[in-house]
């Protein structure tokens, strides 16, 4: 294969085409800025000139509440964050194990396969709030010996169980997306079924579903807040509810919402960037 090297100077026609494209790009940027600013002004005027604005502002966006409650709710958010960082690895590990069992063909594992299918049906079907009540309120009420009665721990268990049922299906679709010829190639080399799975199928399977996993991770970031329904856990939403109970001002909820959005934004951007990179890689003329 030969590659041309050296100076390349575009023709007059190409130079004009480049100038034209630059000019058009400048124009669209300007239009985008103007329309965004115009739309924001209209929205702002419409909201602030509505008849109930004064009361709504005091109830939902009270400056005093912002100053007094933000610190407290932020400390609650740290509990949500801790929960997130503990739950996510457990969810991924559990989901991977169950997905591998569900896609196995060994006759010995038949009862396990049925068990895994049941697991997914039950915990994906059961609303997470109910699961949280049953686990975080129900299990400690049994006052079991030698087992923790911490509502936080049992709440985390409910979240892990519920989410892993979803993530299992994501992992399973990843495993099934790897072409059977890859397994055939691995087996032809003399790799055992287990070695083929671990070294050839799973690495490709997980790579194929990373965008979907990131999406589930973003969803989990806010769903850990559902643990607030368990009274004993003072997470961000729980604290916002307590603050709201004292004076019926809803500003704490707005504060909690803003904090959750700020928490989720980086992962959302990361997921976008990852998807973009995968796309540009696919379009680079990759054959395999």
């Amino acid at each position: 294969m030969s590659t041309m090297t050296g100076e390349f100077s575009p023709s007059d026609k190409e130079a004009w085409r480049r100038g034209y494209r630059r000019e058009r790009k400048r124009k669209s940027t300007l239009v985008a800025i103007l329309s965004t600013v115009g739309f924001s002004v209209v929205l702002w005027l419409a909201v602030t000139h509505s008849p109930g604005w004064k009361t709504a502002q005091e109830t939902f966006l009270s400056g005093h509440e912002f100053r007094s409650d933000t610190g407290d709710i932020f400390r609650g958010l740290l509990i949500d964050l801790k929960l997130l960082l503990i739950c996510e690895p457990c969810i991924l590990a559990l989901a991977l194990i169950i997905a591998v069992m569900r896609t196995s063909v060994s006759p010995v594992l038949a009862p396990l396969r049925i068990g895994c299918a049941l697991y997914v049906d039950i915990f994906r079907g059961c609303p997470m709030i109910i699961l949280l009540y049953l686990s975080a309120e129900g299990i400690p009420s049994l006052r079991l010996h030698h087992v923790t009665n911490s509502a936080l721990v049992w709440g985390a268990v409910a979240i892990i169980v519920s989410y892993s049922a979803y993530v299992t299906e994501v992992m399973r679709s990843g495993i099934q997306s790897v072409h059977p010829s890859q397994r055939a190639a691995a087996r032809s080399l003399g790799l055992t079924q287990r070695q083929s799975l671990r070294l050839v199928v799973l690495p490709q399977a997980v790579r194929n579903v990373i965008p979907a996993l990131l999406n589930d991770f973003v969803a989990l970031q806010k769903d850990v807040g559902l643990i607030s329904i368990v009274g004993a856990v003072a997470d961000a939403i729980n604290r916002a509810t307590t603050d709201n109970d004292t004076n019926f001002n809803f500003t704490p909820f707005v504060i909690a919402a803003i904090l959750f959005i700020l928490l989720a934004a980086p992962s959302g951007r990361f997921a976008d960037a990852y998807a973009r990179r995968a796309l540009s890689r696919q379009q680079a003329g990759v054959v395999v």
Partner: protein
Amino acid sequence: MTAPVLEVRNVHKHYGDARILNGIDLEVGDGQAVVLIGGSGSGKSTLLRCINLLEVVTDGEIVLEGDEITDPRVNVDAVRRRIGVVFQAFNLFPHMTALQNVALAPRVVGKRSKAEAEERGRELLARVGLAEHADSYPDRMSGGQQQRTAIARALANEPRLLLLDEVTSALDPELVGEVLDLIGELKDQGMTILMATHEMGFAHRVANEICFLDAGMVAESGPPEQVLDEPTHPRLQQFLSRVLRH
């Protein structure tokens, strides 16, 4: 005369009502190259898949170096280590570099250390002329380079028999030559080969024996001069006139 490396005796393969193989008999002697030719659907790929135990035969037996490998009690992983396979679509592992692809079997199957396996991998890549592509991923290599990597990978377990399933069919005409040359070299070095191909010129030059498959049976077989130059079976005459016309 030594016993053949591979004996296929009266092998049948049915998928439900579809009877793909209907009593195949053939032998591949030590250091020989036997070429399977025939139209699509004649059973070439199915036969190769049966020999590699990727398919279970419906009847008949396959014997590798005196061991009947169609015995259900046989350890399939151990049998596959003695057979190298190269596929039409390469089937390289896309998440591994060329070196990792080639060093996988020595490391996992041959139980060698990482360093030893890599050294073995580099030797194999050098043998197929790809020493400087060790760190390339498959999607950065040409089709010919990918297929040569796949051949190196198939040699990793030092197999007694190499199965090649239309290994040049997915390549640009320009790249076919480099892969065929490599296969010719392996034959000269004493490798025992059973290959399905449509490259008649190559078959004529390299094959010790050519088997023409038709409707899942060996319709005609013999040395290339006989089978390709003086075909007697009408289906073979028809097949050759179609293949050689352009």
